[in-house]
């Protein structure tokens, strides 16, 4: 019985908690991608770098606040700087839209042209971030490190396995839940949100019923900036901030959005968790868990790790291909243009 509990705790500590946290981050990222796809109708390759830019502005603001001696006690100061980061990113993406994307929207350019344009934007944003903050690792998390440390957990429960929950992990999940609730409330209950969904479902009908497309586009970009910045900051708090990592998040984020069904917000969240859970499960070494569960004679010698952690992209990719082969529009009904 104790062995079973130990196995569950080990599994929770190394698989379930990290996967939930990573899944929340992916879900927020994928929501941004899916919104752009639904309303602006292209795959935005600059999304990873938008996240990096948002996180960067937030980090700079955090440093500013810290130097003024302002902090939030047990919470990371970055939370206070988040609105500044969102505002900065919103300005940047709105300027990008006005200077770059608007032209192609008016031309009714093919989606693939917009994708290539977003590649150019990606280069510029990537360069901007490196130019301003440099390509190196930046740590900006402060406040309490842990809610429960592994040692406390062991002392309190008497189990030999510990369960550590970082405060950033809990924060990620809580913030993600709040953001998702706000987003769905906005999309389903407010007039603007409804007009956005109408625009996404049928552009011509929406235009006929007097919806102002430029306003819808503007609000979409602002929401996307907020989602991307929040996702970027949470990821940076939980792991660390490095511009290149954000770029390589592009693959799991797109995989999440596509697996869930591009253009479908609910799908993006589900996709984020599907990808995160499979990545973490497949690359986790199950030796410990198996050691508790199996009788001693069966105990494995190897790590019981299906794939080394370097192959996590392979997992995102495999899930993506499998889902696309069996459900071409994703788990939830996505759209295709």
């Amino acid at each position, binding site marked *: 019985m104790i062995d079973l509990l130990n196995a569950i705790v080990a599994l929770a500590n190394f698989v379930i908690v990290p996967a939930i946290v990573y899944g929340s981050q992916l879900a927020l990222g994928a929501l941004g991608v899916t919104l752009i796809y639904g309303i602006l109708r292209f*795959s935005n390759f600059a999304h990873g770098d938008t996240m990096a830019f948002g996180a960067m502005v937030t980090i700079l603001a955090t440093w500013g606040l810290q130097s003024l001696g302002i902090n939030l006690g047990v919470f990371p100061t970055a939370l206070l700087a988040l609105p500044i980061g969102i505002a900065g990113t919103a300005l940047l993406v709105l300027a990008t839209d006005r200077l*770059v994307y608007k*032209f192609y929207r008016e031309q009714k350019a093919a*989606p*693939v*042209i917009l*994708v*290539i*344009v977003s*590649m*150019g*934007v*990606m*280069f*510029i*944003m*990537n*360069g*901007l971030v*490196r*130019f*301003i903050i*440099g*390509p190196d690792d930046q740590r900006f998390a402060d406040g309490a490190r842990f809610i429960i440390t592994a040692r406390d957990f062991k002392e309190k429960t008497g189990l030999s396995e510990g369960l550590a929950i970082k405060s950033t992990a809990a924060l990620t999940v809580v913030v993600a839940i709040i953001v998702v609730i706000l987003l769905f409330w906005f999309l389903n209950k407010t007039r603007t949100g409804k007009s956005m969904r109408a625009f996404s479902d049928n552009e011509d009908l929406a235009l006929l019923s007097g919806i102002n497309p430029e306003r819808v586009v503007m609000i979409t970009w602002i929401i996307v900036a907020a989602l991307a910045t929040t996702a970027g900051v949470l990821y940076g708090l939980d792991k660390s901030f490095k511009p*290149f990592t954000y*770029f*390589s998040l*592009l*693959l799991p984020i*797109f*995989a999440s959005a*596509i697996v869930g069904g*591009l253009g479908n917000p609910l799908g993006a969240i589900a996709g984020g968790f599907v990808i995160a859970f499979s990545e973490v499960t497949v690359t986790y070494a199950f030796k410990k868990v198996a050691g508790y569960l199996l009788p001693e004679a069966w105990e494995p010698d*190897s790590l019981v790790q*299906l794939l*080394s952690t*370097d*192959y996590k*992209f*392979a997992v*995102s*990719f495999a899930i*993506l*291909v499998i889902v*696309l*082969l069996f459900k*071409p529009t994703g788990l939830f009904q996505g759209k*295709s243009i």
Partner: protein
Amino acid sequence: MTLLPRDIILFFVVFGLIAATGFFQSWNVALGIVNMGLISAIMALGVNMQWGYAGLFNIGVMGFVALGGLGAVLVAMPPVNEAWAAGGLRVIAALLLGIATVIAAHQAMRRLPKGRTKVFVVLAILIVGFFIYRAVLDPATAAIEKVNPAATGYLGGLGLPVLFSWPVGALFAAGAAWLIGKTALGLRSDYLAIATLGIAEIVIAMMKNEDWLSRGVKNVIGIPRPVPYEIDLQNDPFFVARMTSWGFDPVTASSITVKLAYSGLFIIVLIILLWLSQAALASPWGRMMRAIRDNEDAAEAMGKDVTARHLQIFILGSAVCGLAGAMMATLDGQLTPGTYQPLRFTFLIWVMVIVGGSGNNFGSVLGGFLIWYLWVMVEPFGLTFIQFITSGMADGYWLKAHLLESAAHMRLLTMGLILLLVLRFSPRGLIPER
């Protein structure tokens, strides 16, 4: 499909820029740009086949280039006999088992009737096969990686002349492209793009991780060259006498000779490829490709097999990228999986194709040279520019120090700006499709 005077002038401008580097800076740098420019031009030709001829959106160029580099290692490096003795046959057996598993699963998927049994059987074959594969492979790789890990720790190659690796690199890339194409080409363009992006990351992860194959992040260095070594030239009395009599410093002359030899080899490859691509584009096959690109439905209604043609061009274009990858590993004399980054090896090639003019082979070649020149030169230019801007600021002022330090990142900004400007004001590129 011939060159207009305007296009020839553009080529002269680009070569003039590179020559200016030679006159004002050093011929070594200029020839370095020419050699990588030649390789970039070949990569751009490959991407242009996929995008320009057929409208396929492949952003996994990096993976194919890396596979070509792997080809260079597996062909040209001397075999490590102890490693082969330690586990070579076992690795081959494991790989065969892996392939057998995939084939069995594929057959089961095709043969069995639809339903729950089928899913169960296919999954069972895959899972059991995977564990058997790992059980056979793991001890072998551990044994191989133990053989003198500081110097080898991998199986090595075949020890053949490195020039053979060029077609082999192309074949590797073609094989990977066939696999991807079979699974992903039926998908929509965005999905294909993400799929290729994923494959490229997996190829790099494999090369970083499978030490028995490619030494992983320990890198393979000293791939044998197809041209003489500088040091041999410098020790060759005939070469030294000849160069001194012409009034050159033998050391500089030796490195320039080596670079020129590479350029010669690369130019031969580029001319052959360019000739082949031009001939293909002008042939009925090329017209069919463009017809498919411009209207898939109409082409299909005319009885063209769109999926098969897409697969064909996807394999061809990827093979060209693999060839370029093998050439690049030959030029560098090493394979360093850690340096393969999508911005440099996928998206930069895309900038070359778009700026040069998608659908035009000469445009891709021009774009390859021009963008590579800029990629190299933006850094020194950017530094000069920033020094000029900051010249009014006091020394030691934080902004000045920061700006000077960040000048190195100007190149990404510049590339993005060039891409956006070309897309906006000259969307058909410098040498448009005609």
